[in-house]
């Protein structure tokens, strides 16, 4: 549509008529723009997931080419999973890890958010500092904690020894290994819950607080009866996000404990990795991963229901 220099009102009239007539054309135009994105999204995410579902039905073992497309016993992997002690153990380790990291991140995040929720330039600057653990590359977080947990070079071990409480090397100690991972993971991700809570606090209606103040509430009462009930929703969403993310825990475990000692810190994700890329049982590992993806989808769906599918909720 070339713009020509006709009388302005004539052009406007024609343009308006055009815009009306073009509504279906516009719809087609949007679809043409949307299609490449949808096609790529489908090709890079949905198709591989379907492929994963297919391989989970085979006994695929990279060292045995004949197992590639063997669909004679499609559900065998899943039947094996139910009896695989190591798999069941990995689910239990995952449950413990998720429970503790999510709980601690919510508590510490909430604590810090309440502390930092004041209008002051110092606290604003500190907020940026608290971002650091969360934005660091996960592998760097793992290296940082490897240093802290290695007695030879660790300031932590030195400090504990200095105050007369020498600690065992936490990541190789059966009683401490999972706790060590939980501490590192909590450090990495409490800023996430903190920031979400801070964002919610900033949108808290002033009237609520003012009304409670007028009624003579003190700071503790204000927090307990006004702020916390207001934060319930955001706490739930933050918890779900961290819960889903905790299923992905990999670099920390890979660097710190390698799933050990024994399989005390071997979460399901990690077990799947070992089956696939240490033992080359890709079929079996696919089945493990399908279980994880199913859990992820379920939790994602739950999250979306809670927040109203993203865009239609205010």
């Amino acid at each position, binding site marked *: 549509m070339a713009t020509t220099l006709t009388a302005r009102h004539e*052009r406007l009239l024609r343009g308006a008529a055009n815009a009306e007539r073009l509504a279906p054309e516009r719809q087609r135009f949007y679809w043409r723009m949307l299609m*490449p994105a949808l096609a790529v999204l489908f090709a890079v995410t949905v198709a591989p997931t379907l492929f994963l579902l297919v391989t989970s039905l085979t006994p695929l073992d990279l060292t045995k080419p004949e197992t590639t497309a063997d669909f004679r016993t499609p559900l065998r992997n899943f039947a094996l999973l139910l009896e695989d002690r190591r798999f069941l153990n990995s689910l239990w380790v995952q449950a413990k890890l998720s429970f503790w990291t999510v709980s601690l991140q919510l508590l510490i995040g909430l604590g810090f958010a309440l502390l*930092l929720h004041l209008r002051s330039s110092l606290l604003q600057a500190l907020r940026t500092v608290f971002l650091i653990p969360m934005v*660091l590359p996960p592998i760097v977080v793992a290296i940082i904690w490897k240093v802290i947990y290695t007695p030879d070079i660790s300031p932590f071990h030195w400090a504990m020894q200095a105050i007369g409480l020498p600690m065992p090397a936490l990541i190789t100690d059966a009683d401490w290994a999972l706790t060590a991972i939980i501490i590192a993971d909590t450090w990495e991700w409490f800023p996430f819950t903190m*920031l979400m809570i801070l964002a919610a606090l900033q949108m808290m209606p002033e009237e609520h607080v003012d009304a409670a103040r007028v009624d003579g509430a003190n700071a503790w009462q204000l927090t307990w009866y006004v702020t916390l009930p207001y934060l319930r929703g955001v706490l739930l969403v933050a918890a779900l996000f961290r819960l889903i993310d905790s299923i992905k825990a990999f670099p920390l475990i890979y660097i710190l404990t390698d799933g050990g000692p024994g399989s005390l810190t071997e979460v399901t994700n990690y077990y799947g990795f070992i089956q696939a890329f240490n033992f080359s049982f890709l079929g079996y590992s696919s089945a493990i991963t399908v279980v*994880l993806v199913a859990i992820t989808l379920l939790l994602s769906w739950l999250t979306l229901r809670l927040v109203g599918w993203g*865009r239609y909720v205010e």
Partner: protein
Amino acid sequence: MSSRAFAYRAAAERRLLYALVIVLAILVMLPFIWLVLMSFKTNDDIFAFPPKLLFVPTLANYAGLWASSFRYSFLNSAVVSVSSTLLALLVGVPGAYALSRIALKHDKPLSLIILASRMAPPIAFTIPYFLAYRWLGLLDTRIGLILIYLTFNVSLVVWLMRSFFDACPRSLEEAAWVDGASLWQGFTRIILPLSGPGVAATAILCFVYSWNDFFFALILTRNQAMTSPVAVVNFMNYEGWEWGKIAAGGTMVMLPVLIFSVLVRKYLIHGMMTGAVKG
């Protein structure tokens, strides 16, 4: 209580709060600061007992690192992250615009795909990609990594940019159409220039996500296309425990991410919650 006494107490409380927050901040940052300090220490200083707070800084670790093959992996990281980001923007930005303007009746499945692709454990994509790449000869290539990073980058672009476009009033491009612009011009000449900051923030987030990836690169590369997070870890496994180099490598890997994150801190949480929050 007189108002002066009250004001005095409030000021004292505030100072106490500041002191508490600063102490906590230092405590939280200590592990991170320690790694950075370590990267400037000689091997003797690293193993010094008690640990040295004051030491003569050295750049030897960085020099040694740069002389090794680490610099190729650093280049790989940069090329792969930038390419994947550009590709995702190319596909995702028009899609996001269309999604923002179109009357889509059933967009719940799309929301679920976008959220789930950000949430799925990386191994879910790694197994099928690994098998496909083995067949296609894309293992240990930059192209392989660029493609697999699209799994999270496209969703990220579509979701973030849609919320930016939602915030651009439709009357803007409608006015342009009335003036005779084509539908495509309305997008490229009117809306896109207005969304510059949004595109920049989205690009940075995509870059950071790609740069930070460890799992995909660990599985899908050996040496040709190895990225720097994997290369740093290799200092642990094969060449003995070179703590100085590990610390220097870690510091170099995190440097671009830290700079970029401060630039886009406003959008960080939004990006991390891709798929589940309204823009």
